[in-house]
């Protein structure tokens, strides 16, 4: 029997008789297999060693990432608290003149929706001078820390301009002029809804925001033809709407109205406006809750920051 015939068998025959030549081949085949096995072993040892090192490096990277994530989380928590602290509370004059209810929810820890109450202390100090305060609602493009930083920037700009002018269109134009290059540079823009309260009326500038006034049986929707802040360097138009005792004013960003249900249908501004008008005789807190409940029942998921302010004039100014 030759060595090749032996290898072709499935069982070991007895007795095995091999020639010297085949025995020599068997010897070298055995040695060759041992060599090959040794080379395989060295290859796998090197591979396993590398795998172990890779896991160690991965562990180290994970530790570093965990540390970095923890720092970011801490920073975000601080940013959340700072942003919450920057949200205003109504001044005593506003509280005397207006019933106010607010729903404000950021999509992430910090966000781009922002509202503010502005007061010109020198005018407000006169007691019942309604020209002394204004309300702004803004939606900065994008979300997160960058939008929040733009929010603080705009807050400061509006506060500054309130001291220099009493006209809403001049205030908004001045802020836009001053912020235009900066906002363009960082590729950000912001919708603006700036409302100044005057005797028996409001004056507003609206660039991309949403607003309506329920005046008796009439409903006035805000003109939304002006540009966003940071989008065009041009003048803004100012509008007036009567606003007397019992009238209702609602201001909101696009978070609610651009949400969609599971079938992809939009919530729409019309639905929200109709809801507000329908419940206009209820307390402002109830109106806000009613809108929020309707939105929550409708939307498949939150896709944006949501801000809704509803206020009613308590008495004639």
């Amino acid at each position: 029997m030759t060595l090749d015939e032996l290898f072709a068998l499935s069982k070991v025959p007895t007795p095995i008789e091999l020639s010297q030549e085949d025995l020599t081949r068997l010897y070298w085949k055995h040695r060759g297999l041992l060599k090959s096995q040794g080379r395989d072993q060295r290859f796998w040892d090197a591979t396993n060693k590398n795998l172990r090192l890779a896991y160690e490096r991965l562990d180290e990277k994970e530790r570093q990432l965990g540390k970095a994530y923890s720092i970011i989380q801490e920073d975000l928590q601080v940013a959340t608290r700072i942003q919450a602290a920057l949200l205003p509370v109504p001044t005593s004059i506003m509280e005397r003149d207006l019933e106010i209810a607010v729903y404000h929810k950021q999509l992430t820890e910090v966000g781009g929706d922002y509202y503010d109450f502005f007061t010109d202390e020198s005018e407000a100090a006169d007691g019942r001078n309604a020209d002394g305060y204004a309300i702004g609602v803004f939606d900065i493009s994008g979300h997160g820390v960058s939008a929040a930083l733009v929010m603080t920037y705009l807050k400061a700009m509006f506060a500054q301009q309130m001291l220099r002018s009493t006209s809403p269109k001049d205030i908004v134009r001045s802020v836009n002029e001053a912020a235009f290059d900066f906002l363009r540079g960082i590729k950000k823009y912001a919708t603006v809804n700036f409302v100044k309260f005057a005797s028996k009326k409001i004056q507003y500038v609206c660039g991309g925001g949403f607003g309506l006034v329920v005046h008796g049986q009439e409903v006035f929707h805000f003109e939304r033809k002006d540009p966003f802040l940071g989008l065009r360097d041009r003048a803004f138009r100012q509008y007036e709407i009567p606003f007397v005792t019992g009238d209702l004013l609602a201001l909101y960003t696009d978070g609610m109205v651009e949400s969609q249900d599971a079938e992809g249908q939009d919530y729409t501004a019309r639905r929200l406006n109709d809801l507000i008008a329908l419940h206009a005789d209820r307390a402002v807190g109830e109106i806000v809750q009613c809108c929020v409940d309707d939105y929550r029942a409708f939307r498949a998921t939150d896709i944006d920051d949501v801000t809704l302010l509803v206020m009613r004039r308590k008495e004639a100014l």
Partner: protein
Amino acid sequence: MSTSEGQLVVMGATLQGFAQACVNLNIIAGRETSGALTEIDIMSFVPFERLREIERIVLMVYEDSGPILERVGFEMMMGWYRFGPGKHIVKTGADFLRFQTGSQGYASVVKGPESKVGIFRLQELDEKKGTALIHSTTPFEKNLERGVIIGGMTAPGDLDYVEVVNTQDPQWFNIEFH
């Protein structure tokens, strides 16, 4: 040949074989894989530096890169024999050694200035005793070359035993085969 004069170049097919062996053995992965295998014209000569880049990845990633490069060289020659022109050039393990006479095998895949290209030459061959000696002054990594010799001699399948040792002097490969 689209490479500049005086540059060390390697046959695209050799680079392809080297890169493919690295990929098959999962030695390089992800982004490096696609980079290693893209735009290799197997019929043209390409800069030797491209091969060196892949080699550098292996040397950087593996602390003990010797056995890895040896396996890459082995797999590269198995591919050369099974899927390339190998089986038409060599029929036995000893043929592979004879193919290295006067560096002819090496010269067919690497070109460049004499000072850079070096030699890969069969110095001695005793088929009866099953011994041979190859002298190499090429720029290839010597563990890789050891794998190339083992793979090139093993691929035809007629040898039961192949051992290549260059521990005393990396440029001199002492070969025993049966």
